[in-house]
């Protein structure tokens, strides 16, 4: 806490693709990335809920980011689950199309998202221009909040 707020601290993002767009989550919010496993559908749940999955003995709720971000791209891809840390969101994993690299970005390069840049600015914590690519940083709490709870 002694560091000055003006000093740009490097931040690391775990990036992934959803519907052709590059997204990222702060690496501190992510517990692990796991392969897609058979999911148990939960009837009557909101559309973004893909189902329940057992990740090493504990049950996680899987949210489909394609659905949440309004992507109608349904090209088959090797989908993965980004498991969030329990302190961020209670046992929850995000279903993504493809996992990207870990990128390190100076904190001051994260900009506030402007309307029209992404499907749902409410879910976005900020954006960052990488080499010719726009990284949209998601706020995992707000993503989870879209389905209530």
């Amino acid at each position, binding site marked *: 806490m002694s560091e000055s707020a003006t000093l740009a601290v490097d931040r690391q993002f775990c990036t992934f693709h959803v519907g052709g767009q590059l997204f990222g989550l702060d690496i501190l919010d992510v517990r692990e990335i796991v392969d897609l496993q058979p999911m148990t559908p939960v009837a009557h749940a909101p559309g973004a809920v893909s189902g*329940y*999955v*057992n990740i090493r003995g504990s049950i996680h709720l899987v949210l489909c980011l394609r659905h949440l971000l309004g992507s109608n791209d349904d090209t088959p891809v090797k989908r993965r689950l980004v498991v969030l840390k329990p302190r961020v969101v209670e046992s929850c994993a995000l279903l993504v199309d493809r996992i990207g690299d870990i990128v390190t970005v100076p904190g001051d390069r994260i900009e506030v998202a402007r309307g029209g840049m992404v499907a749902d600015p409410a879910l976005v914590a900020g954006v960052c221009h990488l080499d010719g690519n726009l990284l949209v940083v998601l706020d995992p709490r707000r993503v989870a909040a879209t389905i209530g709870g």
Partner: protein
Amino acid sequence: MDDDSLLHDFIAESRDHLSTIERDLMALESNTEPDLVNRVFRAMHSMKGGAGFLSLTSINAVAHRAETLLDQVRSGRMTPNRPMIDLLLEAADVVASLVEQGREGASTDVTAICARLDAMMHAQAPAAAPVATTGPMVNLTGPQPWAQALAVPEAALHGRDTDHPLLMGLRFPATGSAPLSPTITTNLKASGEILALTHDPSGAWVVVLATPMPVEILVSLYDLPEEAVAPLEVSAPGAVAPAPVAPPRVVAAAPVAAPVPVAVAKAPATSSAPQATSPAASTDDAANTVRIHVTILDQLMTLAGELVLIRNQQLIAVNQASIEQRAQIQRLDAITTSLQEAIMRTRLQPIGNLFSRFPRVIRDLATKLGKKIALQANGNEVELDRSILESLADPMKHLVRNACDHGMETPERRLALGKTESGTVTLAAWHEGGQVNIEIRDDGPGIDPQRLKAKCLEKSLKTAAELAAMSEKELVRLILLPGFSTAEQITDVSGRGVGMDVVATTIENLGGTIDITSRLGHGSTFHLRLPLTLAILPSLIVECDGNRYAIPQTNVEELVGLDEHEAASRIESAGDQEVFRLRGHLLPLVRLDEILKRPKAFTARDRSDIGRAHRQDRRPVTFAVVRTGSTPFGLIVDQVLGTEEIVVKPMHSALKKLSSFAGATVMGDGSVALILAVEGLAAHAGVEPDRSEAEDQHVSDQDREAQTLLLFAGGNDERFAVALPLIRRVERILLKDIQRIGGQEFIPVDGQPTAIIRLEQHLPVSPTLIEGEEAFLLLPKHLTRPVGLLAGRIVDTISTAVTLTTEAMPNSLLLGTTLIDGKVTLFPDLYRLAGAHDPAHAPAKAQRAANILLAEDTAFFRQLIKGYLEGLGHHVTVAHDGEEAVEILGKQTFDLLVSDLEMPRCDGWELARRVRQDLQLDLPTLAVSTLSDPKSIQRALEAGFDRYEQKMDPPRFTVAVDDLLAGRIGRPPLVNGKEQPRV
């Protein structure tokens, strides 16, 4: 150790002390056994010490005074009495609340309670010792070695009753640390006055008794050897022993009341287990226990769960493994199982922890209500999952309060009824069938079903007809209805009309059930059955749409499998609800796949769609009969896979609002299965308790598509059907009773000659075939003369939607034909048959053929009513709902509108309103409905209908039509489309 953790330890320890102090204090009232007094004293003392160390001055001040008071009791200088115990309890309450406040409570003002404790101390001190143990002592001696120097208080010696001239020493053999048996003390008090009770060095009890009885009698009375009874004398007159401040051996002089158990009435809950543990055992316990935070236990539980999964995967892989590996896997299996069980046990707590709260509750209630109530608790040692125990606290408290309030008469009333003055509330717990059973029983007045009925009617919770059909047991369950309360007067103890339903819901949410039995005048019993633990649930695993689901075993009553034929023939519909007749009761059926498909709770349309969609299924059906509360229903699944003990995980907090699921679990193969919440499913599917109980003999309240039909066979197995509501009764007759008069057959029914109609007399059908000596006579309702229709065999009663066609077999005496179970079924028109048979029954043809518009959505009734009207010689135009009727009315003129009330799009009420207000038509209108409640009738008349008739009463219907067409309507004329107020 820092100050904070010291404070935490102090709070935790104090809670422990406080949890026992309350019970001990109450026991103290009737029992001054030294162990008990010491325990209370020590508890207060250690709280005082801890509070002093942590500078919690207010706790310290209160505890100090309470301790001082207790010290007086301990030393025998004071005898605990009710006001003192009350004050000490109050002091304990103050300390408890201060402890919970921790540091914040340090400076709370406690002068009031302190002053009262001081006052008690001083008020009691002089008058305290009724048998002054503080006064000078006198030594007594006797011939036996043990009776050489027995000290008794001088005051007691001289103050003894003149009837008790003899002084006797009795020596009872050592009983270890146990007190003298209560039987002995009771007998001793009956045979004289106990002047002193001491424990001699060998551990034996020595009693100095002032009595009229000589040695021989005492010997035989107490079954003692002769040398154990000694006549005593004052050893040396005037040789007075020095008065010890607290004579170490004199335990208690006067109130040697019956110690501990049995004395239920005076010492509530003294049979509780924790108290039964000897002091030695409890210190032992303390040394061997460690405080562990619940989160650690939960974590262990989760880890054990994971281990179980890995074990399960290993077991699957065991086939490929080598022999050594196999042995290891087996060991892993065994250890994992034991580990899981051991961890599970850490979550269990004795129910005594909960029961021990009630002596105080009862004591306070009894005082408040002016009643005498004792509490008996059995089975304190029964263990339950702590989460269940916690959730159980409020419902139990409610039940106990109820037992004291409604469930107990005043002492005067009890005596007048010939009962004991003091009522008893009994709490009992025991294991049975893998469940924990808890009983709350009172010996009060019981529950009066008649009063329940009256209350229900008054509050319009049930109709008189519903109540009349209920068994005593069902009646008693009425108290579980929301908004029900029978307390004549609302007290602050109970009777707010909220509660019993909440109790029932809580118990059900815990996966338990509640049963009520009551004997009027003898008391009532509430019997709860609960699972041992919520963490592990024996469940039925079923499959639906390729996914597995778990149904808690406690909800499952039985499994039923139907082959494709049975499924097709025995699944019927009652109204829009699919039902199955299981051993004489209609069981609503709910299809799990349909529930899973539809996120919204079922509407009536959904239900009838489902019924229709599956009517043609030619597939076997499997369903589990499940129950929540009192409503059983059949849950249709694709497949039953078996039973399994599952580890319950709650639903994700984002999905908590999904009422159909109670949680999730990880199955042996690592996949996730959802646990079904039976109650939620019932609510989703709209299964109503009444519908399952409702007899299918009457049409349900609403005009539903389905009709209840009586199917019967004529000759050559020809099938006929009549709407059951049109039949008054089906009479079994003997052929030999039929008499012929002219060409007519008669049979006496209810002492009246009843004309027999044979179908073949009027319809082109084969003669009615009668096997054996018996036949059946269908007696229609609403006929002026007794007539019956002869049926050879009753096939069934079914509830189904029918659409009649008249093309297949046009005949004026037939309403039409339809296919039922693939058979052509004829619907004879009972009234026209009766008319054809005896012209007296035939409705007179109308003078003038009128144009009538009939609005009716149900095909069956449409045909039925149209048939009547055409039979009367009228022209009928039909509309399928109100909307269509309005359209037709806009184009054509009619002499009469006959309309159903319950219709889609635009219902009858709306139609009448539009006819009067929008179309400004003055044509006569007749509402026909199966609704018969005054409210619907009133609404219909208010909406603008002129008359209201029941659908199933053709004679009245005919009269109404005639009246309306003849202008006998008694309706004020319309002025500017508005109804004139009647003067």
